């Protein structure tokens, strides 16, 4: 079946090429309204024509479709002014007032609408920061836009090419819109409309939609009839569609992949309810069918699909990810220590981030300037774990979001991905696309769509701020994921700000090839580990005047952590553990005192001391003897490695010295394996028996120290 589909599509493509081999001609109607001495020159209308087909005339004030990323849902706008630029006005431009479709709205903003959006619904777009100049060549065809009062129901008309406006959208709220703003003043009335030959400016002419509504009709006709019909419908296909298809042919970058993906989506959509999308596709199908004999195959295939789709296994397609709700309420913290513990948990979000003011300011101004200027850029942030990199960026975004809500800066869209939270570097594309548009796609397809989105002129896009955490995991052999992430912001129309986070300072030099490192640029920032004063301040600000710790205790924790790693997470964890120890050590649970030095010391010991020494002390006599035998043998050989057989001889001797009964080889091996399992010894695989080699995993001094203290 798949082969058949490939065949079908290849032929379709050839046919389309054949039709559009005739050149596209676009010319201006010589109907200048105004002639200015200086460029540009304005026009009141223009016409698009495809050679051999009818032409379309676009007037100012008319609603139009403009080519966008998604061919099935082109952008909608109203022409406000048309003008030519450059030599003999060859550069033709137009000013438009945009409308925004439901699918173009940010997914998270849809809930502001408060109701289910109608599929034909569009919104009047009021946003200052969007580019409303378009290239005339990107105009597809006119469209009908109707204004409805906000309380009116949507008419359920069969005409899928009429769009309805009720509200306006200014990237923050929906507002009711006045009808005079929307309705085009020069709505082409029948009287003033262009000659009848230009009528099919609306693509769904009655005869066309009729033939589409009875898709199986042509099968009863003779092949000759079918051909005539197909030619007929080909002319009926509005020129705009041809235009769009032609452009599609020209711009498709990886046709093989695209075709297949389209095919699969088509299969999914082939439902009983015929969407307009399906209809047009089937018309295209007829064009092809008239030329070959396999129309019946196509028909059977489509019928099979129609049959299969209801009967497919019940895969949970719309599963919502969620964890069950708890049955009992969470208990609120009852005393000071519990309250302190809740505040000291790493997960509790503080009101502000102390000690990172400078870094915060740098990132804030970087992102803000890019948003205000409508440009893009990259920034690389490095620092050891637990120094507040991700937290600072989140804080910056929160503040910017607040500023955007206050209308101080243009609004933007924030997306976050994490290299550790994906199974494969290429999943980055899928996640970005999913968070951007809510679409699901395979990595290759997502890359194509994103590439298109970031390289095409799409005027109504908000700036996108993309946070890439754990960047080093997006490394691939060709580094194409990293390359794209840093390449897109540099595109003229991308408006993408990329903030990347990783642990190592010299990551760009170490793992990136030159062309990737160069695109990342030199905007770098490194987060230093916290000093003890900063750590102390962090704890203090989290506790927020809650008196749970002694001053000295806090200082001890922060000094200790600052000396070791400067990891704020570690610091908070130790404090949390100390409150627990304090709570348990108190005799009366209701009257616990402050967390003191002793509690903190105990917590520090628990977390930092290595267990090797205790483990050696708690080992059985034979295990301790074996460790001594290993050291003796190492000294004898002058090497740090020996076979079990050699050590075992020493062990037997030591047993005799200690007055113990010598043990057998099997028992000796068992002792050795036990020490190997807790990694006091490093062993070769056990199947080697007495020939396996042994190394120590602890220093000899530690062993002596542990055994001497007995």
């Amino acid at each position: 079946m798949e082969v058949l589909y490939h065949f079908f599509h290849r032929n379709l493509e050839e046919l389309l090429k054949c039709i559009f081999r005739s050149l596209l001609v676009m010319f201006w109607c010589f109907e200048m309204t105004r002639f200015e001495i200086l460029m540009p020159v304005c026009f009141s209308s223009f016409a698009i024509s495809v050679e051999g087909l009818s032409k379309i005339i676009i007037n100012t004030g008319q609603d139009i479709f403009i080519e966008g990323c998604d061919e099935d849902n082109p952008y909608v706008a109203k022409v406000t002014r048309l003008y030519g630029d450059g030599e003999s006005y060859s550069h033709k431009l137009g000013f438009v007032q945009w409308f925004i479709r439901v699918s173009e709205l940010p997914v998270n903003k849809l809930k502001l609408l408060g109701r289910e959006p109608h599929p034909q619904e569009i919104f009047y777009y009021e946003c200052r920061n969007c580019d409303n100049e378009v290239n005339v060549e990107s105009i597809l065809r006119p469209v009908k836009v109707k204004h409805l009062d906000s309380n009116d129901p949507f008419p359920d008309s069969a005409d899928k090419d009429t769009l309805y406006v009720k509200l306006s959208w200014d990237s923050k709220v929906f507002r009711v819109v006045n009808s005079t703003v929307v309705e085009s003043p020069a709505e082409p009335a029948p009287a003033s409309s262009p000659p009848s030959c230009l009528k099919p400016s609306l693509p769904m002419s009655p005869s066309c939609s009729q033939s589409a509504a009875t898709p199986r009709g042509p099968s009863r006709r003779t092949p000759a009839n079918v051909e005539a019909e197909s030619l007929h419908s080909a002319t009926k296909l509005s020129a705009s569609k041809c235009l769009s298809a032609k452009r599609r042919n020209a711009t498709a970058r990886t046709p093989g992949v695209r075709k297949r993906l389209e095919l699969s989506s088509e299969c999914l959509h082939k439902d009983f309810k015929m969407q307009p999308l399906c209809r047009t596709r089937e018309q295209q199908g007829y064009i092809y069918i008239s030329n070959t004999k396999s129309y019946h195959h196509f028909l059977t295939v489509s019928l099979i699909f129609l049959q299969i789709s209801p009967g497919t296994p019940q895969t949970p397609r719309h599963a919502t990810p969620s964890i069950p709700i708890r049955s009992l309420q969470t208990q609120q913290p009852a005393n000071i220590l519990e309250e302190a513990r809740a505040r000291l948990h790493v997960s509790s979000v503080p009101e502000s981030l102390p000690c990172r003011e400078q870094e915060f300011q740098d990132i804030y101004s970087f992102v803000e300037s890019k948003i205000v200027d409508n440009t893009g850029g990259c920034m690389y942030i490095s620092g050891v774990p637990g120094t507040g990199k991700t937290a600072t960026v989140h804080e910056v975004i929160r503040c910017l979001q607040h500023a955007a809500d206050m209308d101080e800066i243009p609004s933007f869209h924030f997306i976050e991905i994490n290299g550790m939270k994906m199974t494969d570097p290429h999943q980055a594309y899928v996640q970005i696309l999913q968070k951007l548009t809510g679409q699901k796609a395979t990595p290759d397809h997502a890359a194509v769509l994103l590439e298109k989105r970031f390289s095409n002129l799409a005027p109504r896009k908000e700036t996108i701020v993309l946070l890439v955490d754990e960047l080093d995991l997006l490394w691939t052999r060709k580094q194409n994921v990293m390359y794209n992430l840093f390449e897109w912001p540099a595109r003229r129309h991308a408006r993408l700000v990329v903030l990347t986070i990783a642990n190592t300072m010299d990551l760009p030099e170490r793992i990136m090839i030159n062309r990737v490192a160069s695109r990342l640029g030199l905007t770098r920032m490194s987060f230093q580990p916290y000093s003890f004063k900063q750590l102390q301040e962090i704890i203090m600000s989290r506790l927020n005047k809650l008196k749970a710790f002694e001053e000295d205790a806090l200082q001890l924790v922060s000094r200790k952590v600052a000396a070791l790693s400067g990891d704020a997470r570690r610091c908070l964890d130790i404090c949390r553990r100390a409150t627990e120890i304090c709570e348990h050590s108190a005799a009366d649970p209701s009257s616990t005192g402050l967390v003191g030095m002793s509690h903190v010391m105990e917590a520090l010991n628990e977390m930092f001391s290595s267990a090797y020494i205790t483990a050696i002390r708690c080992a059985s006599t034979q295990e301790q003897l074996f460790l001594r035998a290993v050291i003796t043998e190492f000294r004898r050989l002058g090497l740090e490695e020996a076979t079990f057989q050699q050590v075992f001889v020493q062990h037997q001797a030591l047993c005799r010295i200690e007055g113990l009964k010598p043990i057998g080889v099997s028992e000796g091996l068992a002792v050795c394996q036990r020490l190997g399992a807790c990694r006091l010894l490093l062993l070769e695989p056990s199947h080697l028996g007495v020939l396996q080699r042994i190394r120590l995993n602890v220093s000899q001094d530690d062993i002596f120290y542990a055994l001497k203290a007995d």
Partner: protein
Amino acid sequence: VKLTIGFTQVQQILRERFCERRLPDRLEGVEAQYKHLLELLRRTAIHGESNSVLIVGPRGAGKTTLLQCVLRDLQKEEKVQKNLLQVHLNGLLQTDDRIALKEITRQLHLENVVGDKVFGSFAENLAFLLEALKKGNRSSSCPVLFVLDEFDLFAHHKNQTLLYNLFDVSQSAQAPIAVVGVTCRLDVLELLEKRVKSRFSHRQIHLLSSLNFTQYLERVWTQLSLPDSFPDKKFAQEWNAGVKTLCEDKSVEEVLQRHFNSSKDFRSLHMLLMLCLSRVSVAKPTIKPADLLEASRMCFADTTANMLHGLSILELCLVIAMKHLNDVYEGEPFNLQMVHNEFKKFLHRKSNSMYNFEQPVVMKAFEHLQQLELIRPVDGSSAKVQREYQLMRLTLDHSQIMEALQKYPQCPTDIKQWAMSAFG
């Protein structure tokens, strides 16, 4: 008849104990660890506080028993009972993140599970699970307990994706989770990548028993004695008295001391007591010191030396020749030809031709030794070499050979002498 019923019950109760089928009512010697873990998990269940902890201890130290006891006691509490979802993973079963994710999703009964089947690809499963956890919050979602048995094996998964994500959830304001890792490796933290390590709370519960011999003896006594709830009171009294006399016996104490010296873990002790228990019957109603001695002998038996008892005289001779070669060349590898020559030297000194074997027969015997893994080829010796010249090493210790010769049934004296002589 009454006696028979009594014995069946004794066998049942004690076997359950020794096979670790039934959790002990009360843990001994690990009260602090028990309290720490119980409090930690209770806070997760009741307060919705996310936590992560590692339980570290040598094999057989009671790590899983501790965890199971804590969970059993937690489930008894009304507040916890319905408020804790559990996910149990084992590093030996979930050998990579793909399988582990499917298993987590299945055990949590998320919505992409139908029956027992998890739908979606690896990437989708990960995204789905993370989304689910992210949507939750501290106050309203049900806490999830993740138990990762053989924790160190999870650290070997690619990029440590699963560990990173679990620890990350436990350190961020998402659904409350508790991650409990169980491992016997003391150096487990060194296996974690630094960003994974930073997200781990560094709580470790060490189960290192500082048990002394008196406590060990007491433990043996409690393990063997019957509980007060035993139906036949008289029988229980007699049995317990028998156990008491057993524990006071000098030879028994010696045996137990030897076991204690060798290993302190309870699993090996249970093994020993199980062997004793299986020798008890209606005709022999108590455990005698001799039973314990016999059981101990079985526990300490040298398995490879026992295998030597089943060898033919020729094979034994070859082993002795190898031992001499090892003495002469200080453990250098040997081949069949060398062994055969050594053997021939011995034969040469003897006038009678009792052990005169053809080369193919010797070859066959040599191959049999290799099959028994008493000798093994040296690493890296290529297969191109003829079998007679392939280099081999002996995987037996000299003491094992001598011990086996002493016990070998009807071993010829001259062979014994040859084995004991210093050089060939």
